């Protein structure tokens, strides 16, 4: 297809990869955080809660900057991670990290709401039947909050697809490596006459996200149907 240049295709592929990873890798941590916030009482809970919401409050540039100062090659954490073979700076992994961080609050909020809506009495029933906490979570809580996980996941995916500010600040905008769709769109918008190319990319981005959204809706609806009827 010569509608898009190879560089743009690269951006599409990269964006997909970044958003998928940001979502998938974020899910377990998000779920854990959401569960802890919904069900446990621990000192510093409000601090954790605040921290989770931080990327939402801060201008993305600031988040990106903070990421750069934490996970950059010169930063202690970044240097340590690099020693054990994980590099974020100026890699697609960094783009995924930035997108994941930005999407995290959305994911956690959705999951937390779902967890809070689960009837504790059902979890108790499972416990009386011999299920330990972990098993209760796996066999009762988790299936019941699946709609919330889907909602959180799709929000995170959409957000990750659209994330720009933190990403470009953290990992810059290197075609084929860190140039996601939004970065590519930005680059096109910075030069005279780039609008139509940008618009194409916007359309692709929208199409991808809408497809994901639609799939999630269908899946969630099937889940609910199953629980309501037979």
């Amino acid at each position, binding site marked *: 297809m010569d509608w898009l240049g190879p560089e743009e295709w690269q951006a599409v592929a990269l964006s997909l990869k970044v958003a998928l990873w940001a979502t998938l890798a974020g899910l377990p941590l998000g779920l854990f955080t959401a569960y802890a916030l919904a069900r446990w009482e621990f000192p510093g809970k409000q601090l954790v809660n605040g921290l989770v919401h931080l990327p939402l409050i801060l201008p993305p540039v600031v988040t990106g900057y903070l990421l*750069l100062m934490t996970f*950059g090659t010169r930063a202690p954490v970044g240097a340590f991670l690099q020693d054990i073979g994980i590099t974020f*700076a*100026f890699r697609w992994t960094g783009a995924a990290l930035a997108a994941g961080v930005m999407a995290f609050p959305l994911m956690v909020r959705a999951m937390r709401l779902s967890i809070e809506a689960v009837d504790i009495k059902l979890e108790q029933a499972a416990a009386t039947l011999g299920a330990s906490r972990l098993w209760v979570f796996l066999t009762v809580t988790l299936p019941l909050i699946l709609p919330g996980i889907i909602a959180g996941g799709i929000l995170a995916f959409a957000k990750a697809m659209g994330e720009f500010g933190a990403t470009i600040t953290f990992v810059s905008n290197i075609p084929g490596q860190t140039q996601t769709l939004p*970065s590519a769109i930005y680059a096109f918008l910075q030069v*005279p*006459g780039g609008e139509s190319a940008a618009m194409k990319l916007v359309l692709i981005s929208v199409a991808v996200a809408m497809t994901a959204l639609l799939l999630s809706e269908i899946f969630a609806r099937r889940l609910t149907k199953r629980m309501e009827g037979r």
Partner: protein
Amino acid sequence: AAASLKTALDAIAPGFTAQTGHDLRLSLAGSSTLARQIQLGAPADVFISANPGWMDALQNDGLLAPNSRRDLIGNRLVVIAPANRATPLDLMQPDVFADHLESGPLAMALVTAVPAGIYGKEALQTLGHWPHIAASVAQTDNVRAALALVSVGEAPLGIVYASDTIADPDVAVVADIPPETHAPIIYPAAAIAGGNEQAAADLLSYLQAPDAQAIFAAQGFLPLGN
């Protein structure tokens, strides 16, 4: 490199690769973003800034390869208006802006932060317009957004780089801002210390060579040559 150089650099890249055998990998973002990344260890070889201030900052931090900094190209500021409402302005008239700004603001880039805004404000101060119109300046995060405001007709006037106005049929230049009313608009370039200094040197000289400068000129920039 500053994102505004995308088109030009995209056009220059194939020639450069053909001539020197080096791959040219661009990272396009705001000058401030790139400068900070370099400060924090970005693996860059060459930095082309739209803002001499950030190049100064890197130089002070000792991050530039010694003696590699040079002024690559220049630019001009122009006053624009929506193409369908364009009447030439005489910037020497004291209330020239007031008349036109009844229906909306003057669109500029951030006057304290973005180079085009800083230069523009300086020019308006020199011309004596600034005190009258300061309150009706709509500042955008970059020049392109200022252009867009004029382009869709929201702002009756805007101040942007001449290089921005090409390829947008919806805006028309209604006045050139005299270069002497503000500090010279310069896009400096330099090699980064610790990078591939040979390739950086090759690129910097290629960019200053006539071929490249011609491409820049075609995009509305002012070639500075050697």
